[in-house]
């Protein structure tokens, strides 16, 4: 039986509105409008659909947090800021299936009773913004969005969809930073609580969903939640857009059921490792997720629950494969540089810690690191994790902490066993001691 594709079906020109309609497009919204908003939320809840942006939170449950009546306007934000290194799935949806995304927005907006939706697309995606805006204007022209929906569907419900273009800040993928960015402010994450469903965009009830999550909604409404809940791993059902990059023969996005074997993805779908080399390291869900050693990947299943047992997480399902000749110290230093660059600077542990980790890792790259540095890095990571407003702290700390602990032997080979202190530290260490320089080697 051919593998069923939900988000990126193999249909020619599916991005065109006529073709999308031909294959039953914009019928799910009609079906949804004949039911109550709570029924829709209930079906999405029962389908088991979990967020595809990294946290894998139940989409239906998230929607149910929205107040049923509110004196304030409510908003839906769609997160298309994908900037996590190793993650490149959302751009496929903008390019190949924008109308299913738009229809998903309509259904979600109806379920949570909002009239305005902002779709946040990262600024670098100029081409994909143009493609999506074209699809959106086609949908408006046919009366599938905006006030004309009233005529098209014969109901009182309508929703306006606006594109908000980001301007190059990874942190805006964090939901509260994203809202600040839409408000025209610096993309600083907000302290939670209050949660967005109570106090979000301009202080109004707001729900934020990922592009891929929303694109899954129309088929759930059309084919029923039972159908969806039976695909892939039951605790994290549906398909995932696995993005495979790095040292594989056929990198790319593969839509497959959740719970795929990691080895199956790498060796069968992505065509194996270039030149048949061995695997040193695999990051399963985008650069912020804890990596797995090459000898740890056998039998690993790719879904939120299974990966937890292996001490890592599904993230955005962006798999980065590194072969045995990779300089892992250099790779980790590059990842650390990314989080140092993207830290918004609000919280001291993250702002300072990411800089310290980068400096120490650069020292390791230069071959000047000591064994003491490895423990120091883990200690700094531990002091960032859990001590920041948003999850960028964890995103910066996890790769450093788990790459070093899981590849300790590899890193130990790259550092001096002796503690080499720079001159300034030597001078400092001479103070207040009876035996200056006794344990400091030249």
């Amino acid at each position, binding site marked *: 039986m051919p593998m069923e594709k939900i988000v990126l079906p193999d249909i020619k020109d599916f991005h065109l509105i006529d073709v999308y309609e031909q294959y039953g497009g914009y019928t799910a919204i009609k079906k949804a409008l004949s039911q109550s908003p709570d029924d829709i939320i209930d079906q999405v809840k029962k389908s088991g659909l979990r967020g595809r942006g990294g946290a894998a939170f139940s989409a239906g449950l998230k929607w149910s947090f929205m107040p049923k009546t509110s004196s304030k306007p409510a908003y839906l934000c769609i997160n298309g800021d994908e900037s996590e290194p*190793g993650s490149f799935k*959302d751009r496929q949806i903008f390019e190949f299936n924008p109308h299913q995304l738009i229809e998903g927005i309509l259904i979600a907006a109806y379920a949570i009773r909002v009239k305005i939706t902002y779709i946040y697309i990262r600024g670098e995606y100029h081409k994909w913004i143009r493609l999506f805006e074209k699809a959106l204007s086609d949908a408006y022209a046919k009366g599938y969005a905006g006030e004309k929906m009233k005529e098209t569907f014969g109901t009182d419900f309508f929703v306006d969809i606006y594109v*908000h273009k*980001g301007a190059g800040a990874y942190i805006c993928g964090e939901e509260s930073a994203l809202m600040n960015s839409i408000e025209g402010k*610096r993309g600083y994450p907000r302290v939670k609580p209050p949660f967005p469903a109570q106090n979000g965009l301009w202080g109004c009830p707001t729900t934020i969903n990922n592009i891929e999550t929303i694109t899954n909604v129309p088929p759930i409404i059309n084919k029923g939640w039972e159908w969806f809940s039976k695909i892939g791993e039951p605790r994290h059902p549906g398909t995932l857009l696995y993005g495979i990059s*790095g040292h594989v023969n056929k990198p790319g996005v593969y839509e497959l059921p959740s719970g795929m074997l990691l080895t199956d993805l790498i060796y069968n779908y992505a065509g194996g490792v270039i030149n048949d080399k061995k695997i040193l390291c695999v990051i399963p869900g985008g650069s912020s997720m804890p990596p797995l050693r090459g000898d740890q990947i056998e039998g690993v299943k790719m879904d939120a629950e299974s990966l937890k047992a292996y001490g890592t997480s599904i993230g955005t399902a962006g798999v980065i494969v590194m072969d045995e000749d990779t300089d892992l110290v250099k790779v980790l230093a590059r990842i650390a540089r990314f989080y140092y660059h993207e830290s*918004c600077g609000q919280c001291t542990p993250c702002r300072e810690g990411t800089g310290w980790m980068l400096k120490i890792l650069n020292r390791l790259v230069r071959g000047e690191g000591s064994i003491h540095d490895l423990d120091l890095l883990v200690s700094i990571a531990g002091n960032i994790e859990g001590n920041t407003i948003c999850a960028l702290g964890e995103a910066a700390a996890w790769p450093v902490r788990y790459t070093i602990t899981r590849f300790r032997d590899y890193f130990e080979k790259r550092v001096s066993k002796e503690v080499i202190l720079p001159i300034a530290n030597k001078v400092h260490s001479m103070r207040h001691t009876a035996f200056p320089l006794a344990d400091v080697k030249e």
Partner: protein
Amino acid sequence: MTFKFTVENTKRIEEAVKKYPRKNAAVMPVLYIAQEQDGWISQEVIKEVASVLEMTAEEILGVVTFYSMYHTKPAGKYHLQVCTNVSCMLRGAESIYNYIKNKLNIENGGITEDNIFSLEEVECMGSCGTAPMFAINEDFFENLSIQKVDEIIESFKNQD
């Protein structure tokens, strides 16, 4: 030199403002329009954007400096953005980046003497599956090799 929006761009700003319940929320799209018109965000641009959106110049500056896609100095006619993040790095981005630096004889953030090319080392652009990549202004060039990079840069040179 004072900066004023063109008539056409003033209309575009009015459209952008309509998308949001508050005027100041349009600051990001308005800054993009300004950058399109003038090439970069100068102090004069900031003053004008502030007066158009009824905000303070400091608020505008705060936004401009937070986001990496607003240029606070003039960029070249062709702005090269080379990704060196993990997935590109694994596929040889470092040698491509170094090749471009040598070819154009500029460093990160630099601009060639004839103001044609400027160079920026950027974070992940979402082309991990087609790495390595670089972008010239708004267009992505993917699955690069040194030879391909060379041809692309030459073709842009010849356009001038």
